[in-house]
């Protein structure tokens, strides 16, 4: 009765890995679609505070980003410990903001300019002094639409 003879025991059959590339490709496509390439390289610490009464910012191409925070560890020796402003990959002064807004406006089409929004990405440990100065400059530049960018979460996480 060799019909039901047991197969040769011993070594385990190899796991079929033929579908592995498919699985990996699936993951790959997910990340390719979900990826947004960072526009600016952050040179500062930027931990956003959390809030729960938030609105989503639409039309990402019509947003100007202003980053504020302490210089990150590799820049600390050069730029010190105080919170600073970063515009487009560079540290900047408060007085540079108007020029920055003008440059951003010049790069957009004319009909889009009224919809430009400024996104303030400020580290939660920064002081209001620098934020107040930025707001004053934005008023001077007549860029009045403002968004305090935060993460979703309860305010009690802020402490």
């Amino acid at each position, binding site marked *: 009765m060799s019909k039901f003879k047991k197969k040769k025991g011993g070594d385990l059959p190899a796991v079929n890995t033929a579908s592995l590339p498919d699985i990996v490709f699936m993951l790959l496509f997910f990340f390719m679609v979900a990826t947004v390439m960072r526009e600016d390289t952050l040179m500062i610490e930027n931990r956003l505070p959390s809030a729960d009464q938030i*609105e989503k910012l639409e039309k990402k191409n019509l947003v100007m980003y202003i980053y504020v925070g302490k210089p990150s560890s590799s820049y600390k020796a050069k730029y010190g410990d105080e919170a600073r402003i970063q515009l487009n990959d560079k540290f900047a002064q408060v007085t540079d903001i108007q020029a920055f807004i003008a440059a951003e406006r010049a790069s957009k089409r004319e009909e889009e300019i009224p919809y430009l929004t400024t996104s303030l990405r400020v580290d939660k440990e920064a002081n209001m002094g620098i934020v107040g100065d930025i707001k004053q400059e934005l008023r001077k530049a007549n860029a009045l639409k403002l968004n305090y960018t935060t993460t979703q979460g309860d305010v009690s996480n802020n402490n």
Partner: protein
Amino acid sequence: MAKRSAPEVNAGSMADIAFLLLIFFLVTTTMEKDSGISRKLPPMEESEEDVVIKQKNIFTVLLNGKDQLLVEDELMELKDLRAAAVEFLDNGGGENADGQKCDYCKGKRDPNSSDHPDKAIISLANNRETSYKAYISVQNELVGAYNELRNRRALEIGPQQGFRDMNFIEMQKNYKDVNWPGNRKKLEEVIDQIKKEYPQKLSEVLK
């Protein structure tokens, strides 16, 4: 002549190539979080004429350099701020500029608090040393107070206009949503009415 079969391409390294790409995208991915509290700054030109506002129509919120919260000259915990702001805005103790009483307010109608949501102003003052996180927390609570009142009002007048079980936040979301099937024009009217009934009047001072 025997048919020559095409040689099979060795696909064994495909997984490796895909992995390489996958790891690249994994590393570069930042899930962008682009949401926050939206505000509109007041324009630069100051009107010369001084507007006289009665003290009882102003709700002063002060954040000092040590992140302590002072509401109407009294210390307050952050968690109580929203309720206090709602109580102030919704008081309805008097009349608005047109001499109308606030018939949708549900407050105490205390004559020593705000007259009408239309007249009530929240004044937020902060110091240069105030931390940004404290400022955002306060902003969040104040926006929350307005949203609470607007949501309540939306649930009251929404059903009459055919928008059942929809609060103000959902109304605004539906209005922005292109695929929303309802009557947008009517919805806009309702949103505008609620915005007019509970206008956001928040003035900021940096001390």
